[in-house]
């Protein structure tokens, strides 16, 4: 019954995989990066999640709702699954280039949609699986669960993302089939973007409403169902309450209820797919264009320098491709909103009077601002993937750069300049504005800008170097060049680690030695410049060689 579905699923998964490095040197490099990411990112995140759940469960063990902590974790994981899932589901079900090759095959619509949903589920939820596993371990340890409970709860945890992913897919198909508003891929992308924003706004609103409560009062009222955020979570994801009830009491009926809801959503999705998927996917076009009209060709030619031409090409592609614009450009500019929200949640007084006094008064706050400027640039430059996706986003056009009469260094520099410019524009003005707001001394502001520029350089060259080793040039849709590109993840992990080590280390040293913010900034700047020089040298030698080796073996 599921033969076609599973065959297609295997093909889709094989297509998603990145090419493995074949050369010894690259294999070794990839192994080193994976080890670093595992040791310093995955394991700490898993241990942290397990510990958090363990502590929450322990502290709730005497209350009426000992499983409230894990229920909250499940709820947050489900929200994130929906938030990122909606875009991925649209992408896989509707924008993927392989659709035109799959639709003519004698396969039923539910089999196609089912295979695609399964591929999304397996590919997109790896991190969720690991966090859920960690949470369940923390919970089982806290309640001293018996071996059977351990096995069942961990197995059930792996299915946590099934219901939210299926719900996203159902919404997607129904929207595509029945909405008259949707005519093109671009419109769909905008709508899914708005949907993500709505969910983000809901989360932010919920978190803001929690900021004024103390934890004990929150737990008591939430357990009683009096907190709107938790109440909405229960309505949106009823299966979570059932799973957590099973975790708390071993109630088998609750477990069966949880599995039944997940299964029902999958079956409903397959039925809807059988009825509507083909109608909704055919006839989907690119954005409509205005009718053709002649342009005066003799007036439009402008001669530009090679560097300017290359940069203009990069900007055109980034600004005109929705996926790149939202994931690489726009994302660089939205972080201040989240920082302000975080401050609000923490109850920080942002009034100018207080901020000016804090900066001028305490040494640690000025050091913190200086290091924050560096850290946020490191994080945003890696999050926007402009460096780590620089070559992968070329896709099939990658080989073009080797055919033109141009040293590959020009192309490298053009891409690096675009990445650094966007990152700098997205981070430096905000920090400068804040510096002016808090009356930061000019010398501090100059140091902060230098630090941010050095950080942008570091991440850009690191990302490009990683991407040059093994770019993901074969992708079915534009989003895949980002999401399925391991280099973006590696770059993000290393950048965050750098921020933690340099930022955390220098902050600690400054506390011990009472070092000034300016000196801390200068040391961080020197460290980054040293790393920048090493990376630049590697980029211009090994990186360029890497670009020549792509497709050669």
């Amino acid at each position: 019954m599921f033969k076609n579905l599973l065959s297609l699923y295997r093909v889709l998964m094989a297509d998603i995989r990145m090419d493995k490095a074949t050369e010894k040197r690259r294999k070794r490099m990839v192994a080193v990066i994976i080890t670093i990411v595992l040791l310093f990112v995955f394991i700490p995140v898993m241990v942290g999640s397990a510990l958090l759940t363990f502590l929450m469960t322990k502290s709730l063990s005497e209350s009426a709702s000992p499983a409230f902590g894990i229920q909250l974790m499940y709820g947050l994981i489900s929200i994130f699954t929906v938030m990122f899932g909606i875009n991925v589901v649209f992408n896989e079900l509707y924008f993927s280039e392989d659709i035109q090759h799959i639709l003519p095959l004698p396969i039923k619509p539910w089999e196609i949609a089912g295979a695609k949903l399964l591929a999304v589920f397996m590919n997109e939820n790896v991190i969720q699986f690991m966090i859920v596993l960690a949470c369940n371990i923390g919970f089982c340890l806290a309640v001293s669960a018996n071996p059977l409970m351990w096995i069942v709860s961990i197995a059930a945890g792996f299915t946590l993302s099934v219901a939210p992913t299926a719900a996203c897919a159902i919404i997607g198909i129904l929207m595509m089939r029945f909405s008259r508003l949707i005519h093109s891929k671009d419109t769909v992308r905008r709508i899914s973007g708005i949907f993500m924003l709505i969910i983000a706004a809901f989360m932010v609103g919920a978190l803001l409403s929690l900021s004024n409560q103390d934890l004990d009062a929150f737990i008591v009222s939430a357990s009683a169902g009096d907190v709107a955020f938790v109440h909405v979570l229960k309505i949106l994801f009823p299966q979570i309450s059932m799973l957590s009830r099973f975790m708390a009491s071993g109630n088998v009926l609750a477990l069966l209820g949880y599995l039944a809801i997940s299964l029902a959503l999958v079956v409903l999705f397959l039925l809807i797919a059988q009825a509507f998927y083909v109608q909704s996917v055919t006839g989907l076009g690119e954005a409509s264009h205005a009718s053709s009209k002649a342009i005066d060709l003799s007036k439009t030619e402008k001669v530009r320098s090679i560097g300017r031409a290359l940069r203009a090409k990069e900007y055109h592609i980034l600004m005109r491709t929705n996926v790149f614009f939202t994931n690489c450009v726009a994302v660089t500019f939205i972080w201040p909103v989240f920082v302000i929200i975080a401050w609000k949640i923490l109850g920080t007084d942002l009034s100018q009077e207080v901020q000016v006094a804090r900066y001028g008064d305490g040494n640690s706050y000025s050091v913190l601002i200086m290091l924050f400027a560096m850290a946020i640039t490191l994080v945003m430059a890696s999050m926007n993937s402009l460096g780590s996706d620089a070559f992968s986003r070329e896709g099939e056009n990658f080989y073009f750069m080797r055919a033109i009469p141009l040293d590959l260094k020009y192309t490298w520099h053009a891409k690096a300049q675009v990445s650094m410019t966007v990152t700098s524009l997205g981070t430096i003005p905000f920090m400068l504005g804040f510096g002016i707001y808090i009356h930061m001394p000019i010398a501090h502001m100059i140091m902060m800008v230098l630090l941010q520029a050095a950080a942008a350089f570091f991440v850009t060259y690191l990302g490009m170097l990683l991407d040059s080793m093994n770019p993901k040039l074969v992708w079915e849709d534009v989003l895949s060049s980002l999401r399925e590109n391991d280099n973006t993840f590696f770059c993000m992990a290393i950048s965050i680690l750098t921020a933690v080590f340099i930022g955390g280390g220098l902050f600690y040293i400054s506390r011990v030695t009472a070092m000034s913010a300016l000196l801390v900034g200068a040391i961080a700047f020197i460290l980054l410049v040293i790393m920048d020089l090493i990376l630049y040298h590697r980029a211009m030698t090994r990186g360029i060689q890497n670009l020549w080796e792509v497709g050669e073996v």
Partner: protein
Amino acid sequence: MIKVKNLGKTYNGKVKAVSDISFDVNDGEIVGFIGPNGAGKTTTIKMLTGILKPDDGEIQINEFDMKKDPIKAKQIIGYISDNPDTFLKLTGLEYINFLADIYKVTEEERKERIPYFAKQFGMEKDLGERMTSYSHGMRQKLMVIAALVHNPAVWILDEPMVGLDPQAAFHLKRMMREHADKGNSVLFSTHVLEVAEKLCDRIIIVAKGTLQYEGTLDALKEEYGDKDLEKIFLEITGEEMNADQK
């Protein structure tokens, strides 16, 4: 002029894609590069255009060695790849101007060439549109215009006729002939034997990465008696034997 001597390329240290191929494309000549799928045509063309580095052999484009002087060699090549889906978010005109900038084409030359080529290929009304809205054929026409905007002496075209309508194919063939008649060189790969028959001064047949025949079509026909071109091709490339065995 293109001079290729003992060219070789092995992928992954195992798969020999091209082995010891040598040929010349003289000034004033159109040479057809013919072979079945997987024969090594595209690999050879990629080496000629500097996209791939050969493991063995030498490539000379006019007076420039592709290994020693790749930038100068590439500057005089007009290359059309087998995939016209390139930088689709740009408008046709932006793409042409991008290449014109890379190849340092002056403003005066652009003003003269772009409208001329646009008219030849019936693209005047479409150059302001983004290439995402183009059909496959229109993209192919645009690739031709963009490849020729710097007036290259040597044309290397990988399956240039694929997707072109009869009118555009006619114009391209005429332009290839005119270009060669001015003393320049044209090398193009094709599967269509009739095109090669009508257009080429000489043909090169490759199969399994090795050169099987180099010479004029007349000499080839003479050698094989009264057989038609298709049969001769199958015999040379060993395809006929495979078909019989199956």
